[in-house]
């Protein structure tokens, strides 16, 4: 897994591009034309920064989902937390949290994780009713998540299931960044006892002197991820770093 992350991160640092090697702004422009559903049209029409935009100038938003399980093809979203931010400030006061009723069963295992129970979601609306609101908070911004493939795949699948077409956008992944920053020991080094460094959210945060936050609440996790991103950039990159070097 870590090896994959490392390869993935190094491949991306060469300059992240959208699906089919198409630059993200070009992809957005095309999708604004091709998408059928008005929500998605609006989302893509808001555009995305070009790859050479310095991080300091990019409006950002940290997100986190709690889900019924790990497999996006079988599981669904239970809650969404988002916190808008820039490199200077995390606008927690504009943070939002939605509970949504998943279309797949809530497993006992996941309840243990996020503490969201059947009775909590029985009264919650379906994601389709919240999608307008959620997409509006994401549009025009670059989205940050820790292990962004989860958020990317779940949202894409969930939207596809409801609107008949999915949604994809560039993302910054604090886990991939950390994997690139913390060079993992080679196989030889591991044979001599070197330990892999954990790039889980809580462990990564600790490296930057960030406080412990209880995991598995979408809003706290989004904030935790946003804080980690600020710390990673402050230590290893700068506001002048082009976003195209980091996003995927």
């Amino acid at each position, binding site marked *: 897994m870590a090896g994959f992350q490392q390869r993935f991160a190094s491949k991306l640092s060469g300059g992240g591009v959208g699906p089919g090697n198409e630059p993200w702004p070009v992809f957005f422009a095309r999708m604004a034309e091709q998408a059928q559903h008005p929500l998605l049209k609006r989302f893509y029409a808001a555009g995305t920064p070009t790859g050479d935009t310095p991080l300091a100038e990019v409006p950002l938003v940290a997100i986190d989902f709690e889900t019924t399980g790990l497999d996006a093809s079988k599981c669904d979203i239970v809650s969404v*937390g988002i916190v808008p931010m820039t490199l200077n*400030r995390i606008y*927690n*006061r504009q943070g939002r949290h939605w509970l949504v009723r998943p279309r797949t069963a809530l497993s006992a295992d996941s309840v243990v994780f996020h503490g969201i129970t059947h009775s909590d979601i029985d009264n919650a609306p379906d994601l389709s009713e919240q999608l307008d609101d959620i997409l509006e908070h994401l549009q025009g911004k670059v989205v940050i998540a820790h292990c962004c493939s989860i958020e990317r795949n779940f949202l894409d699948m969930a939207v596809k299931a409801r609107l008949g077409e999915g949604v994809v956008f560039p993302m910054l992944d604090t886990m991939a960044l950390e994997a690139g920053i913390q060079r993992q020991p080679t196989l030889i080094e591991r044979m001599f006892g070197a330990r892999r460094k954990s790039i889980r959210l809580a462990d990564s945060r600790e490296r930057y002197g*960030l*406080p412990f936050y209880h995991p598995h609440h979408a809003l706290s996790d989004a904030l935790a991820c946003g804080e980690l991103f600020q710390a990673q950039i402050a230590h290893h990159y700068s506001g002048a770093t082009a976003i195209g070097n980091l996003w995927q």
Partner: protein
Amino acid sequence: MQAENIEILEFLRQHHPFKDLDNAILERIASQTDVAYFKAGTQILNFGEAITDWYIVRSGAVEVYRRSGELYDRLTTGDYFGQFGLLRNKRIRFPAKALEDTLVYLIPEPLFSELFEEYETFADQVEVEDRTRLRQAMARQADSNQLLSAPVETLMLREPLTVPVTLSVRDVAIQMSEESVSCALVVTESDDQPLAANRLVGIVTDKDIRNRLVAEGLPYDSSVEDIMSTRIASVEHNQFVFEAMLMMLRFNVHHLPVMRHGVPVGVATLPDVIRYESQNSLFVVRRIFGAQSLDELKALQPDVRNCFSRMVAEDANSHMIGTAMAVIGRSFKQKLLEMAEEEFGPPPVPYCFLALGSMAREEQLIVTDQDNALILDNRYDPKLHEDYFIKLSNFVCDGLDACGYTYCRGGIMATNPKWRKTLQQWGDSFLDWINNPVQEVLLNSFIFFDLQGVWGETQWAEQLSALVAEKASRSPKFLACMARGALGRTPPLGFFKGFVMETDGEHSRSINMKRRGTAPLADLIRVHALAVASKSHNSFDRLDDVIEADILPPGSGADLRDALELIAMVRIRHQALDLEAGRDPDNSIEPDNLSDFERRTLKDAFQILSNAQKYLKFRYQFGRAF
């Protein structure tokens, strides 16, 4: 819908000044808080820039500077900054820099202002200016122990019975019976004003009538003047109840006239006082005077410690505890001197045994060494009399050491021939110190400017005090020298994590609260007191005299009082904790053992002391005219 972040909410709930706010407002604050991360070494706030948020340190550490670049404070989790600028002109007054990687929570200005306006407990706790917060904290504490710090006038139940000095004892007794009181105040007679307004010349009690009239077989129509006591101990109406009690102990009387503007307005009796006061110190003093041997005296040490602990538990203030401990210490000395005179016979020439330093200032605590000296009659002849006073001094000082008042390491004891002088020699010494001040000499002589006679010709001590008061205030060179000496020990800047933080940013593990707190405060107050010719010895009393003389910047006298009380009480409470835990009490405190309240208020108190030292330096520069 705004969502409050549970992590932020939980954090606020656990930290001052939020923790006392109710849940609804805390949730609102949590939903209004933004967040920012600063890498170690990053400037967070620059002087003069606009400030729009209040900064709470969530993790890491931040250094706050004065405009001059001087370190103002070092902050860590739960501390906050930016309020000075927010409350003034919304410009940054104290720049701040991340010392470690730091996460801050940002509370927007409108919300901060609202909290500050609407919530009194919040505003009280936020450090706005060093002194305001301490003042409010001390005021709240004083409120909570009203009973023990009640003024003596709260005891008085009735008008005193006043009788003219010409009345017969029989007529006085009739009036006392009619009024059913156990004492009468005797005043001079004059036709043109009411009796009670006349000068108090004596006091007569049931016991005086029994002992001095009936037992002596005097006629009932003797004048009351013949049996009244003329050495009258009295208290002012606004003195504390505990002071009345201590006065009764000291003079061994059960009735104290209460005076207002020189006119008796009531009588406080021992039962009145006991109803208000804990009997602890009374009990100990009685046992001291009842002791039959040195061994019995030594055995009283646990009682002294218990008395100290109980006064702390009962929320007595530092003045009450300091005075009670001084009275107990003085009682030990008096009892030992009484025993010495029994053993070696009456003194060949009159003398006065002096208490010096904290005992004389009535600021004694549980850990204390003995500082004492002797004033001898001017007819003293070493060849004839020295032997006696050597024996007497050895007896007393050894006895004190055995009773827990360890020998003075600096040798300031009556056993030291250097500190056994005639009244004339003492007068000359004081004049020499004052007229020809030498820094090194004076540094070791501070203690002599706090003196009290405890036995024998105690009026000699008062004469020396009067001499010092008169001469010192007129010698700028002496005051400048004393002031310089008083600046030798400085307070730390505050606390940072588990450390004491010095003004140069250095850290240490513990702080000696006497050396870095109460002692420099007492030194500083002494200089001002000498400058205004005060004859008081207690630092609080001296401060009153200094404030009266109006030589301090406005408000700073009251600030000093708060600072002294706070530092003394922290020292006292930690000694009580040591006793409770079975440790030997000392003056040293580790920041980890300080409560939140103590850390915050101590920092303010240190700042007040530091400012007061700067003022002292400025005011008593030699050659400066004032």
